[in-house]
């Protein structure tokens, strides 16, 4: 198992590395001289431009630049914002908590709603309640997040005045953005939970569990749920990066001072170091979450563990 975790981690590091290489190559392909993003060649004398070039390492060949860049990233140094001159890592460190402040509660709320709903739908499968749960949560999926945000603002911030409309003004500000992140994806998890439970209930080993004398609740808890929730648990870990990604849009609408808004500002300003820094961080987060998901699924299901340990 330890060896397997180590191998998964190594794979993850490799993927992140590949992402950064691709990222760097793409940025190299950007049209125009990157120096023009830092200084306007029409107004700054050429010798100063040369000095700037040296300072930013732009006079060196591309592969050397890449190695410097990579080494710096590994040391946690993403460079400075071209626009504000602030250190990228400081920028990210101040914004990240705000993004997590949305993503983590959204994730928890999502699962505390979706798993019981899916379970209920499965236990009452075929009933009107089942259909109602499935139809409502699936319909939510067709509502674009940014429009849902607007609707929530209209109803709960403008008309009812229950929550602040935007910005961070204490815990009450969390409610609308968290709901916006939570609701659209509900349907997927509800359906997954329901399908897994229904499939597991039909497994012969459930009959065995009854035959040896377990009560209804013991069978449901220790044999049905225990097995059905394996894929659901794995999805839990895979969902975090999705939420962080989704926060780009949500944070913009709610003027939320998180990483998503930072990324958007950086993109509109062509502030490359900031864009690169954020993307590397999100890639690390995503690959890390995938790795954790794999390891957890291996821990929960010995069949997968064997498959993973022997295969690949």
């Amino acid at each position, binding site marked *: 198992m330890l060896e397997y975790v180590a191998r998964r981690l190594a794979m993850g590091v490799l993927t992140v590395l590949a992402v950064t290489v691709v990222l760097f190559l793409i940025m190299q392909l950007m049209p125009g001289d990157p120096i023009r993003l830092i200084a306007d060649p029409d107004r700054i004398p050429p010798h100063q431009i040369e000095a700037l070039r040296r300072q930013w390492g732009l006079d060196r060949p591309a592969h050397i630049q890449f190695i410097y860049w990579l080494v710096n990233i590994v040391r946690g140094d993403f460079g400075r914002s071209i626009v504000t001159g602030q250190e990228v890592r400081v920028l990210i460190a101040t914004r990240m908590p705000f993004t997590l402040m949305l993503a983590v509660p959204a994730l928890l709320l999502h699962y505390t709603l979706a798993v019981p709903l899916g379970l209920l739908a499965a236990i009452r499968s075929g009933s009107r309640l089942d259909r109602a749960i499935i139809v409502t949560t699936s319909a939510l999926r067709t509502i674009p997040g940014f429009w849902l945000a607007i609707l929530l603002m209209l109803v709960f911030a403008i008309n009812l005045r229950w929550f602040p409309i935007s910005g961070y003004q204490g815990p009450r500000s969390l409610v609308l953005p968290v709901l916006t992140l939570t609701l659209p994806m509900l349907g997927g998890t509800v359906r997954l939970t329901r399908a897994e439970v229904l499939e597991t209930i039909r497994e012969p080993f459930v*009959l065995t569990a*009854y*035959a*040896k*004398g377990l009560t209804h609740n013991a069978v449901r808890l220790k044999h049905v749920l225990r097995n059905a929730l394996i894929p659901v648990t794995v999805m839990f870990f895979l969902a975090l990066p999705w939420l962080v990604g989704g926060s780009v849009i949500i944070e913009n609408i709610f003027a939320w001072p998180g990483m998503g808004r930072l990324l958007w500002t950086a993109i509109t300003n062509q502030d490359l170091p900031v864009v690169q820094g954020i993307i590397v961080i999100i890639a690390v987060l995503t690959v890390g979450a995938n790795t954790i998901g794999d390891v957890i699924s291996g821990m929960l299901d*010995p069949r997968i563990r*064997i498959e993973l340990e022997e295969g690949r």
Partner: protein
Amino acid sequence: MKVMAAPPETAILQVDDLSVCFETSRGSVQAVSGVSFAMAKGEVYALVGESGCGKSTTALAVMRLVPPPGRIRRGHIRLGDEDLLALSDEAMADVRGRRLAMIFQNPLVSLNPVYRAGSQIEEAISLDSVPRPVAWRRAIEVLGRVRIGDPAERALRYPHELSGGMRQRVMTGMMISRTPDLLIADEPTTALDVTIQARILDLLMDLCSHSGMALLIITHDLGIVAEIADRVGVMYAGSLVEQAPVYELYEDPLHPYTRMLMRALPRLGKGQGRLETIPGSVPDLIALPAGCAFHPRCPERLAICASQTPVSRVVGGGRTVACHRGEVDR
């Protein structure tokens, strides 16, 4: 008519007029219709019949584990002095495993893949309020009793790490771990190869003779029946058409269907005699033929057979048969 093959005071299981149906979209499948039989303590009773005749459903009904959309429509099931169909869900759960256990038809998928073999047995044992370490030790003992080599190590394996025969023995161990009065084994050897089949049967027989456990075994294999059963019940289209001590049944089958079964056997009572196909087809359990369910295929049918359902009669020596011909001839 009541059938009392084993004297009531020694009967461990008594099934009376049991009917089970599955409510499907096509209609009501009459899987078991009016089955009655009884088993004595320590007795080995075999249920035989073509595929789909209701053997598994009968067994599941005794366990009160008929899966939806199935439903027990009628009848009584007594285990010792307990009326199983009258018990609450909790009381029934308490009976299962402790007094009544069952090995299911497909041993390869009947163990939970995410728990170790030993834990699954331990889970059963600890239902008797045994502390966990003790339960684990007993689980290992049980594995030894079902003749698994190196039981302490095997207890730690997951089901998919064990061979088919090994899994079947784990299942058997789990079900006998609480020394039930009655064990039901639904085709316990079908998926296994011949040598392992023989060992599992050996094991089951041993358990019966040593612990006085009664065994209800379901099988297609008349060879197995001849080897291990004390008495046999023959099922056709949801009904128990004949039952008799194994020797009598093979020597002198009374029901025309039993006779066809016997003829379909190449070498009687020897080796791997399996049920061969019998001319005609199994009736649709949604629309059973009127009268005797077997009459469309019966070479000996009488005029009355198409209109009147034959009732099970005791014909001496613990034998019963449900056939009009007997009524006329004997």
